[in-house]
């Protein structure tokens, strides 16, 4: 189980990074980047660094994603929102 995770998670990270690179919509890129951070925080747990896992989940997946999405809103790259 652990070995499988150890092999799959880095591959998932690379897949996420490539998906960010080639995605056409910015919102998709941001969401995938946020999931990248989440995968990262699971890897921190596997690497026995709980401090990093908590910080990454709070900072990387939480606040960075929030800031990115608010930026997308400001640059009108979100579809279906009410502002113009």
């Amino acid at each position, binding site marked *: 189980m652990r070995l499988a995770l150890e092999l799959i998670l880095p591959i998932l990270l690379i897949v996420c990074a490539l*998906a960010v690179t080639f*995605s*056409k*919509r*910015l*919102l*998709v890129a941001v969401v995938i980047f946020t999931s990248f951070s989440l995968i990262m925080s699971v890897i921190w747990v596997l690497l026995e*660094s*709980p*401090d990093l*896992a*908590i*910080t990454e989940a*709070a*900072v990387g997946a*939480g*606040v960075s994603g*929030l*800031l990115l999405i*608010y*930026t997308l809103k*400001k*640059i*009108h*790259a979100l*579809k279906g929102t009410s502002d113009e």
Partner: protein
Amino acid sequence: MSKMAKIKKEKKTLWQRFTAWVNGDAAEQPLLPAEPPKPPKNKGAKGKKQKAQPTRKEWMGLSRFEHFYRVCAVVIGVAIVSVLMVTVLQLPLFGSPDNPAVNEVVERYVEKGLEETGAVNMVAGMILDYRAFDTFGESSVLFLAVTCVTMLLMRDRNNTTKEEDLLTAREHVIEGYEEDIILTKIARLVIPCALVYGIYVVLNGHLSPGGGFSGGTIMGSALILFAVSFGMIRISRFFTYATFRKVTSCALMVYAASKAYSFFTGANHLESHIPLGTPGAILSSGLILVLDICVGIVVACTMYGFYALFTKGEL
């Protein structure tokens, strides 16, 4: 015509549909609705040609440099990756205990850490006591970042017009009256939990995983959730730009002062009169607890500050 188009649309391969789904929809929509101002279109064919020629030339000129730049970037990138790969080949094996990084430094951090810093969490002991100067620099980075964002996004005559000001004022009013009932009900449940959890993580930074940064971020997200669900007006009753400035500066000052004290006593071989307390208790490990609290406050304020400046351009 339209029938043909419809058939074509339906004939999409699975892959295309999948990519369309990943991208959110099928329609080829420009990424950004606002386009750069284009030169006014000329109806006459001659005019069009004349207009098109120079721009094309310009484009070609730019593209040659661009082309060169892109090739260079790819070459450099591939070179760096391959060089690093070769390096990885030479590095010690993953998970092996005879890694060169495991040496007398690690030994002392682990074995003497509790005795010298009083922290059960060795990472906290390391970043807030052994290598505290780095961490002070890091808090300064956060402080600088929020200052920069204030510089860029705080409303002033350079970045806002009159209409935008009016628009924000209207939004504020609307926010005050319209409360999303689902959001507010859930927020009432979640915010206290998040705040308490954040405070717990901060106060237990020296005992368990976490510490100032993660706990501060959690408290900051609780504040953000409050602002999202109840509106910025409500939050500005107790948290204005002046409070923000005062709280951040004072917390950083306490941090700087306590670290200055410990650096000064340490370097001059004076005795530091700070009790380390019983290991494992909340009130232990000397300055680490104080530093964690200061960092937590700074981080919480900073995260909320980022949010407020990004959405409304004010605190």
